[in-house]
């Protein structure tokens, strides 16, 4: 009896020692990992911090070497000056018109097409899906020139139409993303609605779209940010300075007036901040979208 109890107590004691060791090991490990992660985090943050810090420097502070990180006093006036000199609000208006219209177009068209690919059995939909994925592999340079010539022929070059209208006709990445999502919605829902005599459009509108809100939000954010950041499209299609987007406007400002880093960095902060804020509020949607398009490919 006594021996037995001793044994059991030993058995209980042994894991406890192990746990302690494990805990110490865990602490050491997490310290090690953090000490690797933190320097990287700093490197990844550095350009942001530097952008912010430079945007608050006066001309004199810009020339101090070695550079100072926190300018005192902060030259807040760089922001209003940059906004006026760069014609920020005009470019902001242009960017918003393009980005919002393209986003609406992408969400409507891509959700319709993915509905067809995911929820309606029709001959040819697999072929269409393969073609769709194939366009993802096609370098944009291949279509660049003929597209430009088409828009030139239509007389659209020089205004927003080439930057907006194509997005009303679907895009492979978003169609792919939404199709993957639509396929996860049980078919029984559609079948039940069919029994009740609902039309295909009604099922799409009243059942599938409400269920797909997270995926639609992902598409909307991705598209909005892509258009907000876009540089090549406006570079090719816009030539009137009054129609420039933010990216193009700020670039042109630098090539005209040279490197006024305080103002340029203030403008850079202003065009970066909205996206970063969007990201902070909608992080979950973002990560979902990236993994949805990435893993299943």
């Amino acid at each position, binding site marked *: 009896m006594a021996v037995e109890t001793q044994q059991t107590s030993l058995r209980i004691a042994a894991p406890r020692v192990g746990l302690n060791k494990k805990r110490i090991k865990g602490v050491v490990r997490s310290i090690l990992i953090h000490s690797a992660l933190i320097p990287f985090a700093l490197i990844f*943050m550095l350009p942001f911090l*530097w952008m912010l810090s430079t945007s608050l420097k006066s001309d004199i502070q810009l020339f101090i070497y070695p550079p100072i990180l926190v300018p005192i006093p902060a030259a807040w006036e760089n922001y209003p000056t940059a906004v006026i000199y760069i014609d920020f609000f005009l470019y902001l208006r242009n960017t918003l018109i393009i980005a919002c219209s393209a986003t609406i177009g992408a969400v409507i068209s891509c959700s*319709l097409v993915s509905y067809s690919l995911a929820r309606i059995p029709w001959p040819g939909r697999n072929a269409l899906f393969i073609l769709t994925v194939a366009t993802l592999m096609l370098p944009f340079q291949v279509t660049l020139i003929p597209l430009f010539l088409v828009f030139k022929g239509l007389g659209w070059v020089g205004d927003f139409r080439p930057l907006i209208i194509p997005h009303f006709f679907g895009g492979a990445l978003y169609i792919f993303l939404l199709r993957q999502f639509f396929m996860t919605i049980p078919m029984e829902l559609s079948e039940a609605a069919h029994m009740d005599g609902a039309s295909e459009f009604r099922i799409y509108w009243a059942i599938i779209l409400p269920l797909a809100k997270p995926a639609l939000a992902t598409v909307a954010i991705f598209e909005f940010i892509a258009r907000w950041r876009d540089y090549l499209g406006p570079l090719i299609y816009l030539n009137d300075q009054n129609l420039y987007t933010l990216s193009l406007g700020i670039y042109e400002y630098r090539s005209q007036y040279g490197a006024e880093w305080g103002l*340029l*960095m203030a403008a850079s902060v202003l065009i970066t901040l909205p996206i970063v804020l969007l990201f902070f509020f909608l992080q979950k949607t973002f990560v979902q979208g990236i993994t949805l398009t990435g*893993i299943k490919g």
Partner: protein
Amino acid sequence: MATAVAGGAPRRQRLKQSTRNTINGILFASPWLLGLTVFWIYPTIASAYYSFTSFNAVQTPKWVGLQNYIQLFTDDSDFWAAVYNTFYFAGVSIPLAVIFAFALAMMLNAKVKGQVVYRTIYFLPTLVPEVALAFVWIYLFTPGSGLINVPFSWFGIYRMCWLTCPEMARQTLVLLALWIIGQQVVLYLAGLQDVPQDLYDAADVDGAGFLRKFWNVTVPMMTPVIFFHVVTSVIGAFQFFAIPYIMTGGTGFPANSTLFYSIYLYKQAFQYFNMGYASALAWLLFLVTLVITLVIFRTSRLWVFYAGGEQS
């Protein structure tokens, strides 16, 4: 769908259903059917045609046969500079990006506190508009006065020329590309979280150490993600445009060392208006990426492990 209809149901109704499906399917897909034709299929064919012509976007294209391609290969040193730079960029930055993104994701996956915060920080640079990105980078890397020189000056190194000399400009851009791997980190992290825990438990039972588990469990299970990353980055590397274009004004300065393929193509098309020549460049690019992608797909049988076993 058809099984839902009771056995005796008239065949006509079933037929009707399938025709209705076809009509609906095409109707719902019609925006993309149109978009695919007008914005993808037609331009792809048209640019193949233009690549055999001399064409300045104003006069009608003039058929010149293979002349554009011959000129590219035999009489265009800028073309070879662009090819070299692009391959250099792809060859150096892709392996580095795979290693870095994987390593960062591994560390994040170690269930440390603040995982979300770190992930956010690593992801942020991918969101910055390319103009802002390029500007900060130019400013940070200004030889002499840029912040990046400060740590080097501690070791008595003062003469780093960064983007202003042909020897370092390419490497500086590779460094910059490493800074925007946040999307891949998120992908690898998601992949790591999908590796079934029982595999690690089984390895533990067998007494496998960290390295063995890494090589024999983690890496094989992650090969599909690596595969996806490599394929998309090859395509991405050949499309590297906005950042080097903004940083150098599209000049390829210094000494063509930052003249990337898509910048050269853009210049031929929209600065010199050699639309035919630029189309030849575009198609060549298409064929090369296609071949590389196919090679990666072929070899993937040898190294990509699919847990489901659909492909072996």
